[in-house]
C-alpha cells in the first residue's frame, strides 16, 4: 500500500463513517426537530400514547372529566391554545362540528395547554364553544406525548385511543374521521379508522 493510499484510507473512511452517522441522525429525527410547537399542516401522525390512556381534566367550570366517564362515546380530545394561529382558525369549525356530532354519540374534550385561564375562557366564549374545556395541569400534554398544537386524539367508544392528527382540521377532514369512527362503533365498518 502506498503512502498516499494509506492516507486516503485513514482519512477517507473515518470521514465517510462520520457523514453516514450524521445522515443517520438527521433521518432519525424525521425532520421534526426545530418546529416551534405549532402544527401548521394537517396530517395523521403515529400514536404517542398507550391505547388505554386516560386523563383527569379540571374543566373551566370546575368539574373533573376523564375518558373513563365518557366510555360508550367516540371522543375527540383536542390539545389547543388560544394564542396558536391554526387553533384560532380551527376554533369555529370545531364549535360547529360539535353541535352536529354530539347527537350522534360523539363527545369533544378541549385541553388548553401552555395557556392561561383568561384568554382560554375568552376564546371559548367568543367562538360559542359548547364542549368541555379545561386547562392542562402541565402533565396531560406530556403524558399524551403532545409535540405541538393543535393535536387531536380520537378515542373509540371502547375507550381505545386509535388515531392522532397534527395540524388544523377542515370541516371535511373532521367529518371523514368521525364518520369512520362512528360507523365502526355502529358496526357498519370495522377497522377502517385504524
Amino acid at each position: 500500500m502506498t503512502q498516499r493510499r494509506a492516507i486516503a484510507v485513514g482519512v477517507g473512511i473515518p470521514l465517510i463513517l462520520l457523514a453516514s452517522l450524521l445522515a443517520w441522525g438527521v433521518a432519525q429525527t424525521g425532520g421534526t426537530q426545530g418546529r416551534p410547537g405549532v402544527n401548521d399542516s394537517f396530517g395523521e401522525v403515529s400514536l404517542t400514547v398507550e391505547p388505554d390512556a386516560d386523563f383527569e381534566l379540571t374543566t373551566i367550570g370546575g368539574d373533573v372529566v376523564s375518558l373513563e366517564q365518557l366510555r360508550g362515546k367516540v371522543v375527540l380530545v383536542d390539545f389547543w391554545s388560544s394564542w396558536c394561529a391554526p387553533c384560532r382558525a380551527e376554533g369555529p369549525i370545531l364549535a360547529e362540528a360539535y353541535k352536529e356530532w354530539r347527537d350522534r354519540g360523539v363527545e369533544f374534550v378541549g385541553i388548553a395547554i401552555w395557556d392561561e385561564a383568561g384568554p382560554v375562557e375568552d376564546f371559548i366564549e367568543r367562538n360559542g364553544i359548547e364542549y368541555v374545556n379545561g386547562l392542562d395541569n402541565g402533565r396531560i400534554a406530556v403524558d399524551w406525548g403532545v409535540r405541538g398544537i393543535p393535536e387531536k386524539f380520537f378515542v373509540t367508544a371502547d375507550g381505545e385511543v386509535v388515531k392522532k392528527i397534527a395540524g388544523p382540521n377542515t370541516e371535511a377532514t373532521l367529518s371523514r374521521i368521525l364518520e369512520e369512527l362512528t360507523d365502526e362503533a355502529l358496526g357498519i365498518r370495522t377497522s377502517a379508522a385504524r
Partner: protein
Amino acid sequence: MPMRIVPDRFVTTRAIAWLALGVLALTVFAACVQEDDLTPDQRAYTLDRELMCPVCDGQTIDQSHAQIAEDMKRVVREKIAEGESNQEIRDYFVARYGEVVLAAPEASGFNLIIWLMPAVIGGGGALAVFWVLKNMRRNSAQYAATHRETLEDRQLKQYLEKVDSDIGLIQAPGAETGQQAGRKGGSD
C-alpha cells in the same frame, strides 16, 4: 550532591502513565456514583441534561425555555418524587417522544453502532497515522542508508586519489608540475 539527570523520554512516559491513571480513577468514581447518592434536585438536573426538547433545535430540556420543555422538567421532578428510577423516567419519555428524546441513545441493539463508531473511527485513524509514520520512517532510513553509502564511496574515492597522488601515481587535482608552471610564466 550531583544533579540527577532524567531522560526526557522517561519523564514523558511517566506523565502519560499518571494521566491515564487519573482518567481511569475519574471513570471509576463516576461509575460508582449511584442515583441514591444524589439529591432529588441533582437527579432532576442530570435527567434534564439527558432529555431533548422535542420541538427545539438540538437543545436538551435543561437548555430550552420552550413550554413543552418546562412541562417535561416538571414531570421529571414529579416522577422523582413519586419514587421512579432514572431508567423508568427515561423509558416514560421514550415511549411518548421516541428514542430521539434521549440526548445520548441507549447503548444497546442498533444504537451500539453509534457508541462504537467513534472508537472505530479513532482507532482506524490512529492505525492509519501509525502506519504512515512507520512508512515515512522506513523510507527516511532507507534514504539515509543509501545517502551514507554514497558519501562513504565518495570519501573513499577521495582518499584513494590522495594516496595515489602522494605516491606519485597520479597528479593531485589542482596541482601543477614545475614544467607547466614555468611554461605559463614564460608566455606572460
